[in-house]
């Protein structure tokens, strides 16, 4: 099957066809001499695919190795956050994801039958993307793969399992197992995106124990016509599943995810059987509900991370590097952010525009982000699955108070949903010297806002940013900005206008204000009126010309 055929098959396939699709297993390379590859990505899940697309868009040849030869079975990751969609917009696949997915912003929390808390994750207008979409992982992977196969500089080898690695300071020799036997290849850089059971992590002896939570959960995906709105509904102790929690999400194609807390003593093999699942679903939907079971899985989880994501020439991203509980949708979303953080930095190092110190900043920034995600998801899990009698007592007290007392609703924790990390302490940032009255901070992703181009065409700020660094200037912009190498200049009040003044308010910008934005759309510096030297120094710093501590 050639790539044009794979792409057209991916485009037209139904959910069932995508999950059953056999991707062509690549033959073992004929040459006995190991071939050398500048970048080898291991793992073709959402993280590995996003990373490979980003590198390919930057003109880098990529070899992608994947042990399996199919897309994800079942909905798995499902909830993709606004930031992930913005990253996918940059990779050219955001719109497809949004078109197919179910957009949502609102979550509701119920105690038994009564609503105790409601939250809106995107309470203001003027953003292109919703807080979340729900989209089955096989669709997500299919769209990413179809995009990736547009690049001739990318080779994908399905059915190629990593079996050995000999890492050196200038690269690694990989042993790869195929159905026809094994072979070796040379890699200058190895990007490990091979998931929570990462082969690379194991082969390199980098396993970490982490904190395993003593609870089991059942995911049941059911297809039905239902009246529930496109919102995240979470029940504590509902009458249809007493003493435990239940989470409901709508997916595309009239599929619904129902996530039942089962408790640690549940038998995972028995609970996977339809005769055990169907009564649980009927208890929620009603005895005569018309639905079919699409997919089910019983899972448990651990919160953990590797101590260092950068191991010489082997760099870990996504679930291979860190694990969280699913409450908060911080797994795949943080993994895609890892990929975006890594892609531009590796590209700059490969292009000789930055030294290896820039990749150290990948480790620092994403380890920090992983800690934040682990902290949030651990707190949620402790609320959902209290670990002691006292913890349970306070949890129940909070839920009981939430009905009548607004402060307690803020303590109710059914998952703090994924938002991008604010990289406040990144060595790539230039700290503020001017005062800004804005929720936008240095280190945070630049906030989106609607803009219009000179020809009147409507656009969005994030879509206008460059693939590399961007200076976002509010007119009048200094004339020398355009002369700085490797910098795209956007002038608000010049080629773009902010008619409603929304962006200026969000950034507390006035005439002369300049924001310096990284390729991954994080703000790394800003001024009321920078000098050329200030801007050049901030740019050099963000390009990795800093000394690691």
């Amino acid at each position: 099957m050639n790539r044009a055929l794979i792409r057209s098959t991916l485009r037209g396939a139904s959910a069932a066809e995508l999950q059953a699709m056999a991707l062509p297993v690549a033959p073992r390379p004929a040459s006995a001499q190991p071939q050398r590859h500048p970048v080898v990505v291991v793992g073709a899940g959402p993280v590995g695919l996003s990373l490979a697309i980003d590198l390919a868009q930057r003109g880098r040849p990529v070899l992608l190795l994947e042990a399996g030869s199919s897309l994800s079975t079942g909905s798995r990751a499902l909830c993709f956050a606004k930031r992930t969609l913005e990253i996918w917009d940059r990779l050219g696949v955001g719109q497809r994801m949004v078109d197919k997915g179910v957009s949502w912003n609102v979550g509701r929390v119920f105690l038994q039958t009564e609503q105790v808390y409601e939250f809106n994750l995107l309470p203001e207008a003027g953003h292109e993307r919703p807080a979340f979409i729900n989209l089955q992982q096989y669709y997500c992977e299919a769209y990413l793969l179809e995009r990736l196969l547009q690049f001739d500089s990318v080779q994908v080898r399905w059915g190629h399992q990593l079996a050995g690695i000999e890492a050196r300071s200038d690269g690694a020799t990989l042993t790869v197992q195929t159905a026809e036997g094994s072979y070796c290849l040379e890699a200058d850089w190895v990007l490990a995106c091979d998931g929570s059971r990462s082969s690379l992590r194991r082969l390199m002896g980098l396993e970490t124990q982490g904190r395993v939570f003593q609870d089991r959960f059942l995911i049941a995906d059911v297809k039905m016509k239902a009246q529930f709105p496109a919102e995240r509904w979470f029940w504590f102790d509902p009458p249809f599943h007493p003493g435990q929690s239940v989470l409901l999400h709508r997916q595309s194609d009239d599929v619904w995810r129902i996530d039942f807390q089962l408790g640690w003593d549940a038998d995972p093999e028995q609970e996977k059987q339809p005769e055990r699942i169907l009564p649980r679903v009927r208890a929620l939907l009603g005895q005569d509900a018309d639905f079919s079971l699409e997919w089910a899985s019983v899972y448990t989880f651990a919160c953990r991370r590797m101590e260092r994501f950068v191991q010489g020439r082997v760099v870990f991203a996504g679930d291979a590097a860190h694990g969280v509980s699913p409450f908060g949708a911080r797994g795949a979303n943080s993994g895609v952010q890892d990929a975006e953080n890594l892609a531009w930095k590796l590209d700059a190092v490969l292009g000789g525009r930055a030294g290896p110190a820039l990749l150290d900043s990948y480790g620092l920034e994403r380890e920090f982000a992983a800690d934040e995600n682990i902290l949030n998801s651990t707190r949620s899990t402790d609320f959902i699955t209290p670990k002691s009698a006292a913890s349970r007592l306070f949890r129940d007290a909070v839920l009981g108070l939430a009905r009548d007392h607004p402060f307690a609703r803020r303590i109710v924790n059914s998952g703090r949903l994924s938002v991008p990390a604010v990289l406040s302490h990144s060595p790539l940032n230039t700290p503020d010297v001017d005062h800004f009255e804005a929720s936008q901070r240095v280190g945070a992703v630049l906030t989106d806002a609607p803009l219009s181009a000179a020809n009147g065409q409507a656009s969005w700020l994030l879509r206008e940013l460059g693939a590399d660094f961007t200076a976002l200037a509010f007119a009048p912009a200094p004339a020398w900005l355009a002369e700085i190498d490797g910098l795209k200049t956007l002038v608000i009040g010049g080629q773009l206008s902010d008619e409603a003044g929304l962006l200026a308010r969000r950034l507390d910008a006035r005439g002369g204000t300049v924001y310096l934005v990284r390729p991954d759309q994080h703000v790394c510096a800003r001024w009321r009126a920078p000098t050329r030297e200030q801007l050049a120094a901030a740019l050099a710093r963000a390009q990795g010309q800093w000394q690691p501590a």
Partner: protein
Amino acid sequence: MLHTEARDLPYDELYEALIASHEGLSAEQSHLLNARLVLLLANQIGDAQVLRAAFSAARAGLPATAAQTPQ
């Protein structure tokens, strides 16, 4: 800062009212009431630093029990 000096409050009356609020409750209900009370008062105090000092002070003064004594 956590205040532990006596204030100008009718302590005997307040103590009586606190005990009375538990009247007729099972031990389990009493525990829940106490937890609700802690949460309501914590929000009323509204100062994270004071609350952390109070959590520590409450824990520090706890009498040692058999379970906490090293074997």
